[in-house]
């Protein structure tokens, strides 16, 4: 059975801090890993990672995948209160039709 484990489950930081969120996975015939941001409503897509070692970047957010060690990290630099959200990691296999989500990391950025 596919497994996605995120850590930490929750995190409180001060504005301006840098945070690193972790996602490890076990999936048969891995295809891709995706990151989502959820702010009290539907998740919104951040990144999709398929190849190891290639960093995806969008503003202050970046993510990278390690297919050998079966994990991904999501970095947020110079955090802002608007980054407060639940960050979800999901994986999909080549034989799968649906995303398999982790429990999420709840991030709170305080002023």
């Amino acid at each position, binding site marked *: 059975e596919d497994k*996605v484990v*995120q850590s930490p*489950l929750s995190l409180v930081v001060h504005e301006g801090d840098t945070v690193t969120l972790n996602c490890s996975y076990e999936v048969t015939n891995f*295809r*891709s890993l*995706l990151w*989502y941001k959820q702010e009290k*409503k*539907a*998740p*919104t*897509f951040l990144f*999709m990672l*398929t190849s190891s070692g290639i960093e995806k970047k969008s503003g202050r957010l970046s993510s990278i995948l390690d297919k050998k060690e079966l994990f991904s990290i999501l970095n947020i630099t110079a955090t802002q209160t608007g980054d407060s959200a639940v960050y*979800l990691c*999901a994986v*999909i296999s080549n034989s799968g*039709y*649906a*995303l*398999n*989500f*982790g*429990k*999420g990391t*709840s991030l709170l950025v305080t002023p």
Partner: protein
Amino acid sequence: NAGVTQTPKFRILKIGQSMTLQCTQDMNHNYMYWYRQDPGMGLKLIYYSVGAGITDKGEVPNGYNVSRSTTEDFPLRLELAAPSQTSVYFCASTSRGTALYGYTFGSGTRLTVV
């Protein structure tokens, strides 16, 4: 472009009642999904469909039924509601061949069973 539309947004049911959560998409997506999200948990797949007339169970299908008579609509039926079905329900869709890219999610239905 409406995207994925879910109705209702909120609902309170009594134990044993039944209801249908509606989901409609106007993007001609073949793949549609129903997830539930409990507090502090990720999304768990209830049912999915890869096209009209085709549905399959996900991780937590018990107590639910679905149908997919058209490409646009993917309703989720709750029979004999139980408190364990109190959750937020999300419908999502994606186009054929790009299921690995971000889904388009509906805004969710918050259901409370009392």
